[in-house]
C-alpha cells in the first residue's frame, strides 16, 4: 500500500465533443516529489486534476492515488489527499470559519481541530468571522489552501494556486508550499509560472493540447539543452561565415546580441582558433543552458514532439502522438 506512488495516471483520456482535452496522459508522482504540471492555457491541466480528484470520469485510462482509483474506491481514494482545481469556491453566505467547519465536518476525523492552525497558517484568522462573499480573490485562494490543510494531506494537489495573487501573496504561497514539501508532503502543482516551477519542483510534466511533451526530472530537462554556445565577436557577420563553414557546428543563429549555435566542446574550441586566425576577436564564448521558460515555449509552441529527446517519454509514444494530430490541428477544431 505505502509503496504505491502518490499519483499514477495511465493513458488517461477525456474528450469534450471533438476536443480531446486530455489525450493518453501518463504520469507518475512518487511520494515526496514536488511535481510541476506545466502547460499553456487549455492544455488539459485542470481536466487531468479533476479526474484525479474524482470530479469527472475519464473516457479511458486510469488514475490512482496511493493505489486507489476514485472510480472504484469513491471518496476513499482521497484519503490523505487534498487540494483544489481552479479557484477554490466556498459558500458566500457563510463566514470563513463556518466554511472551514463545514468542510472539516465532511472530512470527519480530527479535521476540525486543525481549523485555528490552518487559519493562522494562511493569515486569515482576523477575517475568519467575515462572510466569504466579501472576501477578495487572494483571500479566497488562501481559504482554499486552509481548507486543504485541514485534511492533513500526504498529497496536496494545487491548480495554479498563485493565480491572481499579488507579488507578496505569491511569495508567501511559494514559501508555504516549500515548507510543506520540506516536511515530506508530496505536492502536485499545476502552473504556467515558470519561476514558480523552477523554484519549487524537482520533476515536471509538460503538456500541450492534452498530450505529454515531457515527463522527467527538471534538471535533466534543462541539461538536454547543454551544448549550446553564445558567441560575441568584433565582426559577427564574418564570424557567422566562418562558423557556417566549420564542421560540428549546427543550428547557427544570429541576432543583435551575437551568435548562438549548437556544438560539442571540441568544435567550439576549433571555431575559436579559426576565428583568431581570421582576425576576428572573440569578446565572449559562453556555453548556455536554456531556462525552463524557453524549453516550455519550444515544447508547447513548436513541433508537437520536438527534436529534443525528452527523458521520460519513450520513442514510440512520441511518434504515436505526432501521428494522431498536431496542436495546430486541435486549435482549428477549437476555433
Amino acid at each position, binding site marked *: 500500500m505505502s509503496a504505491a506512488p502518490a499519483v499514477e495516471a495511465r493513458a488517461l483520456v477525456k474528450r469534450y465533443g471533438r476536443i480531446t482535452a486530455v489525450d493518453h496522459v501518463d504520469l507518475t508522482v512518487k511520494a515526496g516529489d514536488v511535481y510541476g504540471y506545466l502547460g499553456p492555457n487549455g492544455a488539459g491541466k485542470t481536466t487531468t486534476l*479533476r479526474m484525479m480528484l474524482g470530479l469527472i470520469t475519464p473516457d479511458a485510462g486510469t488514475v490512482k492515488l496511493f493505489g486507489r482509483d476514485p472510480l472504484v474506491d469513491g471518496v476513499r481514494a482521497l484519503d490523505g489527499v487534498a487540494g483544489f482545481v481552479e479557484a477554490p469556491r466556498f459558500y458566500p453566505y457563510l463566514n470563513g470559519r463556518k466554511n472551514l467547519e463545514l468542510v472539516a465536518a*465532511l472530512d*470527519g476525523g480530527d479535521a476540525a481541530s486543525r481549523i485555528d492552525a490552518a487559519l493562522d497558517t494562511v493569515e486569515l484568522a482576523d477575517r475568519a468571522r467575515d462572510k466569504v462573499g466579501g472576501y477578495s480573490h487572494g483571500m479566497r485562494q488562501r481559504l482554499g489552501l486552509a481548507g486543504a*490543510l485541514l485534511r492533513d494531506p500526504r498529497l496536496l494537489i494545487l491548480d495554479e494556486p498563485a493565480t491572481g495573487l499579488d507579488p507578496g501573496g505569491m511569495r508567501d504561497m511559494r514559501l508555504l508550499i516549500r515548507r510543506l514539501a520540506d516536511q515530506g508532503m508530496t505536492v502536485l502543482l499545476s502552473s504556467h509560472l515558470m519561476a514558480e516551477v523552477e523554484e519549487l519542483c524537482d520533476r515536471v510534466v509538460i503538456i500541450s493540447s492534452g498530450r505529454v511533451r515531457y515527463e522527467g526530472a527538471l534538471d535533466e530537462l534543462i541539461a538536454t539543452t547543454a551544448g549550446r554556445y553564445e558567441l560575441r565577436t568584433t565582426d559577427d557577420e564574418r564570424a557567422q561565415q566562418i562558423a557556417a563553414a566549420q564542421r560540428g557546428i549546427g543550428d547557427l543563429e544570429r541576432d543583435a546580441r551575437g551568435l548562438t549555435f549548437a556544438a560539442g566542446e571540441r568544435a567550439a574550441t576549433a571555431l575559436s582558433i579559426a576565428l583568431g586566425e581570421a582576425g576576428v576577436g572573440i569578446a565572449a564564448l559562453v556555453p548556455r543552458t536554456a531556462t525552463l521558460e524557453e524549453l516550455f515555449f519550444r515544447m508547447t509552441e513548436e513541433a508537437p514532439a520536438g527534436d529534443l529527446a525528452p527523458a521520460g517519454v519513450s520513442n514510440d509514444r512520441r511518434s504515436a502522438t505526432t501521428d494522431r494530430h498536431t496542436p495546430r490541428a486541435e486549435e482549428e477544431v477549437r476555433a
Partner: protein
Amino acid sequence: MSTVAAPRTVERREHKHPGVGTVYAWELRKLRSQKRTYLGLGAAALVPLIFVIALLSSSGGPDEVPFGRYVKETGLAVPLVGLLFSSVWLFPLITSLVAGDIVSSEDNHGTLKTILTRSTERWQIFVAKLLAALTYVFAALVVFVSVGLVLGGTFWGFDPLTSLSGTQIPAGRGMLLIGASALAYFIPLIAIAAIAFLLSTVTHNSAAAVVGTLILSFMMQLLAIISGLDFMAPYLLSEQFDAWQGLLRDPTDWAPITHAAWVSACYAVPAVLWAFLAFLRRDVAG
C-alpha cells in the same frame, strides 16, 4: 502565512468518514443561512395571516369550499380552508423554492467540487440534501397550519368542528385531526419536492427548476379540469392534495389517503431515482 498547520504523523490509521447525519445537519445549517429559506417560511406564515385579515374585514366567508361555512364559527376550520387554497400555487411555490435550489445552488456557487473532494460520498450528499429539502417543506407546512390555527383560535375560538359527515368533533380531537391532515397533505408535497429536486439536479439552474416545477404543477391542475380527460384526474398529483378530507369524515375514510400515497410515490420514486443517478454520474466542472 507563518507556521504550518500541524505536525504530521507518518503512520496513519484509516480515518473515520462522516455519516449522512453529519451532512444532513450541515445542509440544514446552510438552509438556515439562506434568504430563500426565510422567504418560503415567511410566505407560509404570512398567507394565513392575510387570510384571517380578509375574513375579519369581510362579512361573508368562502362558503363554497368544505369547512368554508365554519371559518367564523371555530378557529379549527381556518387552517383546513387554508390547506384547500394553498395547493394551487402557494405550496408548490414554497416547496420548489428550496427543493429546486438545493442542488443547483451548489452549481451556482461552484461549491460542488468543494464538498465532493472531502470524505463524504456523493450518495451521502444526495440523501442529506433530499432530507434537508423535505425537512424544510415539512417545517413550512407546520408554520402554515400553526399560524392559521393560532390566529383562527384567537378570533373565533376553539369550538367543536362540524365534520364532513355532519358530526361534531371536539377541539382536542379536532387539533389531532388537523395535524393528521397536515401529514396527509405532506404526501403529495414530497412528490412535488422530488420533481423540483430532479429539475435542480439535471438543469443545474435554480430558476429553471422552480419555474419548471410550477409549470408542471399548473399543467396537472389544468388537465384535471378538462372534462374529456377526467379519467386521468385520479392519477394527477394535484388531485392528491384533498386526500386529507377523508380524515374528517365519520367514520374515517382512508381510501383517498392510500390512493394519494401510491399516486405520489409513482411521481416521487422515479424522480428521485433519476436525480440520484444523474447526481452520481455527473461530471463536476467549474
